[in-house]
């Protein structure tokens, strides 16, 4: 069990390092912050002074080393736009994003999983077909289309809900629903196929043959086995609570991490972008780590083989 945890911890650290390195290199190779920030008409000596001030004149590897030193000492750098600490800029946007992504996540779980399981247990019924149809619809329609359609119906036509901005809980309704629909579809499909697979296993027949009541067969014997594949998908969704809102925040002018990321990339605000990417990677990695540990808890066979 200890080896199981250590291997996965090591993997998590490597993943975060890889993301940081990738972000660092690509950001610096793909554009010049000085050009973007000051425009094309600024004299060369001003640009050079700006570069020197932000350490952009040093060779890439030197920048990289000092970046790592600063990160390790807890310094995430300053925003080039207003010189406030990048980490503060990022963290103050987190609550807004979570206001959308957590309700969306709950919607996905509370609708997607039960719908999929119900469909699996009533396979080939009208409800099953309905669930499959809606699920496919849900995850094939891109969220920007879905968002605009919902705005058209609920904001423009019915005047029932605001079309954008942040404020009351009604403001969060449309973006959260938009964000959840694809996930509901994916989870419903996954839960359904996982459950169908499990219900066909010999141990389910064994449980029925020994007289276990139908509901207890489903609850006590099938669900714990179907949980492993479902947890995988849920883990991925939990991992994207920070990053998953980029498109929807933009559509609904929601001042969250996603909008900050778009603006900062456009402005080449290096420290802010790096900080956001680091946060996204960290959340994703932590949720993957939790999923891995859950696997071991859910399926005793996986505990036996820690390193593979």
């Amino acid at each position, binding site marked *: 069990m200890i080896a199981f945890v250590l291997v996965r911890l090591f993997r998590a650290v490597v993943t975060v390092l890889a993301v940081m390195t990738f972000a660092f290199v690509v950001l610096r190779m793909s554009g010049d912050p000085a050009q973007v920030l000051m425009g094309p008409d600024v004299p060369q000596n001003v640009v050079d002074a700006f570069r020197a001030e932000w350490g952009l004149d040093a060779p890439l590897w030197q920048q990289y080393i000092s970046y790592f030193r600063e990160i390790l000492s807890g310094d995430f750098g300053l925003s080039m736009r207003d010189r406030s600490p990048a980490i503060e800029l990022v963290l103050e946007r987190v609550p807004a994003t979570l206001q959308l992504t957590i309700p969306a996540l709950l919607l996905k779980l509370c609708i997607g999983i039960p719908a999929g399981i119900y469909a699996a247990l009533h396979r080939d019924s009208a409800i099953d077909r309905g669930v499959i149809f809606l699920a496919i619809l849900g995850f094939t329609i891109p969220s920007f289309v879905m968002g605009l359609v919902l705005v058209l119906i609920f904001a423009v036509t019915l005047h029932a809900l605001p079309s954008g901005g942040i404020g009351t809980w009604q403001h969060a309704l449309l973006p959260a629903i938009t964000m959840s629909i694809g996930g509901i579809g994916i989870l419903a499909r996954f839960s359904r196929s996982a459950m169908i697979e499990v219900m066909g296993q010999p*141990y389910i027949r064994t*449980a029925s043959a*020994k007289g276990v009541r139908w509901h207890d067969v489903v609850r006590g014997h099938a669900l714990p086995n179907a949980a492993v594949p479902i947890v995988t998908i849920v883990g991925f969704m939990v991992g994207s609570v920070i990053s998953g809102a980029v498109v929807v925040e933009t559509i609904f002018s929601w001042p969250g991490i996603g909008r900050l990321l778009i603006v900062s990339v456009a402005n080449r605000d290096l420290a802010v972008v790096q900080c956001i990417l680091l946060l996204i990677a960290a959340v994703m990695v932590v949720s993957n780590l939790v999923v891995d540990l859950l696997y071991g808890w859910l399926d005793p066979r996986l505990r036996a083989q820690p390193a593979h």
Partner: protein
Amino acid sequence: MTNLVEIRDLRVAFDGVPVLHGIDLDVRPGEALGLVGESGCGKSVTWLAALGLLPSKATVSGRVRLGETDLSGAPRAQLEQVRGGRIAMIFQDPSSALNPVLKVGRQLCEALKLHRGLTGAPAKAEALRLMDLVGIPDPKGRFALYPHEFSGGQCQRLMIAMALAGEPDLLIADEPTTALDATIQAQILDLLARLRAEMNMATVFISHDLGAVAQVCERVCVMYAGRIVEQGEVGLLFDRPRHPYTRGLFDALPRLDGPRVPLVPIRGTVPDPRNLPRGCAFAPRCAHARDFCHSERPDLHRQQDGRALACAYPLPAAPATQDTAPARREGVHS
């Protein structure tokens, strides 16, 4: 003696394709009955249908009586009481027949709670006793292990222990040794025979292994393409098979004694249930078939010597010569 189970005209169809064409079968209290035939002949389906364990796409008709209880069309709650309580079933692949994410002790205790109302310490004590009874070494130490920590043979022992938990009147053993090594097979067969004697529990032994059937059973039903084609005392059928299919099954067995003779396989394969021959289903593979066999299907008729036979031109009733009898029939008398 009244029958423990009476099956009458049991028919099963999957998606409209009939796979069981009216089975009549009795099981007497305490007896050991073998169901023999190639894969897909309906041996397992008969009992899965009787216990209501077939998927919903299967349509089942006919009557199944267990003592005074009519199982056909019984409500789910009643069937759940019978399953594991009066009729228990064990399956072919023991490693996948136990739930991989539940501790074996818990799976055993579940059956004890369902059928004998045992919970807590008494349930655990009884589960340990059952594990010991079926020959699991160190039951205490292995109570809290998961199925993957047991070998295939031990998993089958656990399945048997679980089946015994409800103190059933009838144990259906569906190919219980097929997935196991030869030495383990023998141990499991011995265990089943011993438990049957000790607990006075009827056993239906579903197998395509005639040697195993001979070792364990008193009476044998030979099934082919969803019908019983020959049925009788095990000695009778093994010494003097009269249906060409029964005879073919024996001829395909390797001999352990006497001169080495080439095995005679039954030519052809089991017919597709969607496309059964018009007459006797075995006729296309039968060396003795005549025109009649291809157009008319013989019914199962009781013979003078007590067996039931469904063949228009059966093999002679005289004893088979020594070199056609199966080598492993010694098991009958052991």
